[in-house]
């Protein structure tokens, strides 16, 4: 076997680029096989990955319905021509679109088709012996030769010992030849498989969360208590495979919400929120009520799920009395912030009066009269809070249609006017009141805050975390470990009668790029010479590559 060509690298015994295996054969089976090979080839994986990145891109430039439906509507209003066209190719729903799904499904199939044969192959290679040492080691990229003053058998024993000590799995020559092969780094492939399997796990867990989860939003004012059931959320979304029965019963009372805004810095930072800290009492049936602190990054935990603080705002307390002083209405009214300075909008619907009275307008935490914009807020904190409202009279709920709590439907209402015929416009500060033309008074008693809470159930999140951690372990093994083979060949020589000597030839075979291989080969030789007694040693190394990472 003089002319065996020694490969320079450890090549997997299956071809990596499986496209090169045979051309398409005629017949459907042949074509199917060909297509399958194409799909599961590394080359296709690269294209699919790049395609996936490209497909995700439009999701970042066009507003997405799943993220912010309001922005999508705004986009349609601003681009009435373009909007529908983009919508037709689902550019507002990129991540649930069939074309995005088809890419990652192909990638997943490719992954499975790639992993399974690899697992089988790896399983075999773990149990198989390393290959015999090649006849000539000179073709290998890292080599070191030395001479030791022992006979060949002893030198071979030393080589075995040196390799064993470094954790190599050995293969001995069967017929008493003087060579040994050591192989190491099987964990690299194990890591690779773990990584790709865990990646599948992450995808499956993510899908599970999107199939079985639910999310509900609710606004609670300070001092209010709220019991979760399907009907009490302001909005509630179920994933395709979840329903009302999945919502656990619990009660949350919002004790306090502390908010602070930046009032020192100027420029873009002025008025930026600095702190949202809340205190809530949570009660799950059959358990003691429990008080929990929460904040933006610190959700309330209830029955294994989490409740997140997503928004907040002001709720002015308003009391409305009829001309006789009877209380018609007294409540804290949730106003919805419209900008960063919490200029908020809201409505008060007084059904106890006949005809119905509707007040609508704004709440401004810090009043500023802008020459162009009119009344605005210049700071989100309560510096000079005012309620600015106009009044309507009539049928508040025409046809019993459902309507927003933040606005009124003025279809069947008339705006109240003063004696001169101007619309009534009130600007009230806390502690003040305003009298409508008929003697009804609107009193601004004070302000509390409200918290916008999000309750979320996602059965996939812990599995996703577990798989994600597994990917990193796999990654560390796959990229951190090197698969290497070391061959040692001994050539006994007798330079002068009576003395024994052996030439030790060590060579290393890498898999992929392996700049540290030469150092290892040198080290193996050094160990062998040390074990044999450190006598005659003239290691000659073949430095191909000194200056690498």
């Amino acid at each position, binding site marked *: 076997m003089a002319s065996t060509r020694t490969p320079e690298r450890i090549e997997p015994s299956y071809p990596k680029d499986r496209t090169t295996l045979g051309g398409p054969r005629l017949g459907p089976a042949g074509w199917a096989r060909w297509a399958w090979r194409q799909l599961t080839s590394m*080359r296709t994986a690269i294209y699919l*990955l790049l395609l996936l990145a490209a497909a995700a891109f439009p999701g970042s430039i066009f507003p997405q319905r799943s993220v912010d439906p309001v922005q999508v509507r705004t986009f349609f209003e601003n681009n009435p021509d373009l909007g529908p066209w983009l919508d037709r190719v689902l550019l507002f729903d990129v991540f649930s679109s069939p074309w995005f799904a088809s890419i990652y499904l192909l990638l997943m199939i490719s992954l499975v088709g790639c992993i399974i044969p690899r697992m089988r192959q790896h399983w075999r290679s773990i149990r198989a012996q390393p290959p015999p040492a090649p006849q000539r080691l000179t073709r290998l990229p890292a080599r070191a030769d030395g001479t030791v003053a022992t006979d060949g058998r002893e030198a071979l024993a030393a080589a075995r010992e040196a390799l064993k000590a470094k954790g190599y799995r050995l293969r001995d020559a069967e017929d008493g030849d003087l060579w040994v092969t050591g192989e190491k780094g099987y964990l690299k492939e194990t890591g690779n498989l773990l990584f790709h399997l865990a990646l599948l796990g992450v995808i499956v867990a993510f899908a599970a969360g999107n199939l079985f989860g639910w999310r509900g939003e609710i606004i609670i004012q300070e001092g209010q208590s709220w019991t979760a059931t399907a009907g009490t959320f302001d909005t509630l979304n179920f994933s395709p495979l979840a329903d009302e029965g999945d919502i656990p019963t619990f009660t949350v009372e919002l004790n306090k919400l502390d908010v602070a805004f930046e009032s020192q810095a100027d420029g873009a*930072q002025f008025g930026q*929120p600095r702190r949202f800290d809340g205190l809530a009492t949570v009660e799950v049936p059959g358990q003691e009520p429990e008080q929990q602190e929460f904040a933006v990054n610190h959700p309330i935990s209830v029955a294994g799920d989490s409740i*997140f603080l997503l928004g907040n705002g002001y709720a002015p307390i308003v009391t409305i009395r009829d001309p006789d002083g009877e209380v018609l209405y007294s409540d804290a009214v949730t106003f919805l912030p419209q900008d960063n300075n919490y200029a908020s909008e809201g409505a008060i619907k007084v059904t106890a009066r006949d005809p119905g009275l509707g007040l609508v307008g704004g709440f401004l935490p810090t009043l500023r009269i802008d020459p162009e914009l009119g009344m605005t807020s210049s700071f989100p904190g309560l510096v000079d809070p005012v309620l600015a409202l106009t009044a309507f009279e009539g049928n508040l709920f025409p046809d019993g249609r459902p309507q927003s709590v933040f606005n009124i439907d003025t279809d069947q209402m008339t705006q109240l006017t003063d004696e001169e015929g101007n619309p009534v416009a009130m600007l009230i500060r806390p502690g003040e009141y305003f009298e409508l033309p008929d003697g009804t008074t609107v009193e601004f008693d004070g302000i509390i805050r409200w918290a916008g809470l999000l309750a979320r159930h996602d059965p996939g999140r812990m599995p996703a*975390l577990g798989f994600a951690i597994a990917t990193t372990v796999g990654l560390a093994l796959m990229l951190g470990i090197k698969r290497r083979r070391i061959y040692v060949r001994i050539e006994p020589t007798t330079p002068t009668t009576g003395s024994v000597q052996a030439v030790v030839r060590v060579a290393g075979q890498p898999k992929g790029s392996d700049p540290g291989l030469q150092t290892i080969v040198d080290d193996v030789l050094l160990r062998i010479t040390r074990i044999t007694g450190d006598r005659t040693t003239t290691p000659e190394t073949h430095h191909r590559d*000194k200056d690498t990472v």
Partner: protein
Amino acid sequence: MTDPQLALASDIAIWASLAVLALALISFSAHLAVTGAARERHDKVKAREKVRVGVGADGEQPADTVDDDRATGLTDSTTPTTAAVEPPTVSHPAEVTRRWGVIGLQLTWLATFGVVGGTILRGLSVQRWPLGNMYEFAIVAASFALIVFSTWSLKRDRLWLGPFVVLPVMAVLGAGKIWYTEASQLMPALDNTMWLSIHVTLATLSVALFIIGAALGVAFLLRDSAEKRSRIRGWLAGLPEGDKLETMTYGVHIFAFPLWTFTLITGAIWAEVAWGRYWGWDPKEIWTFIIWVVYAAYLHSRATSGWTKRHATYVALLGMLCIILNYTVVNLLITGLHSYSGVST
């Protein structure tokens, strides 16, 4: 709760470092030019000697060759490709001064201290981890890149790499200065100290490594095309062989990629804690994902027979392009939950 004096000191330190880096860039470039020219001269001499020896000594091997393998190496050296492989004579031809490179490195060390110091001062002035806006992101990334390069240079001769690191670092700092943000505190969604620190520290560290990786990639592409045309002239001759540059490019990326994976995961954990979902396809999340996928494609293409190293390197540079877009366009033009650039629009 911010200290304007410390913030000012920080600004001065960064500006001064930028100036020092400019000088370092000049010295490093001079170093490359000088070693490149010397190697070119050396190679020419070698080639001529080789011809003489080959003819005159009638097949006898030149004195300095030890075994047949080396001799093969020498035969090739009529093309200057192997110049860098032959240590130590060729790496530093006797008459070549390393002075410029060493000055460059010393200046870089000075700048490293300056940028790191400026970053620490910034952190002290706002009493938090200085990773709350684009400017801070830039100075921390620059710090990491400089630390990695400077310490790497202590262990091995990396003077030739100097310009490739210093120039992008200057660009990063310059970009930071363009989108400068006053020292101030964080909005609450970003104010979860543990996950913020871990997530953004990992992000900056991996970006710093990706920058160095991209610099090496560019060096490889330039050198490689010169080698292909067998015309390694000027400063290109001062670089190591293309193959080695490519190995280093890959070596840096396999550190950066797992770090970016961690960035992705810790970011998801943070999003879960802050917004109640670990993944919601917010623009910033999309881009973190895009970058991750592109670099995964790079690692794959690197491991695929049939893809040349050149093409693989293009994929790596595509990843860098995505990082740049993510930092600029996504931060400034696309609004999402992550709007924390600190730049008013």
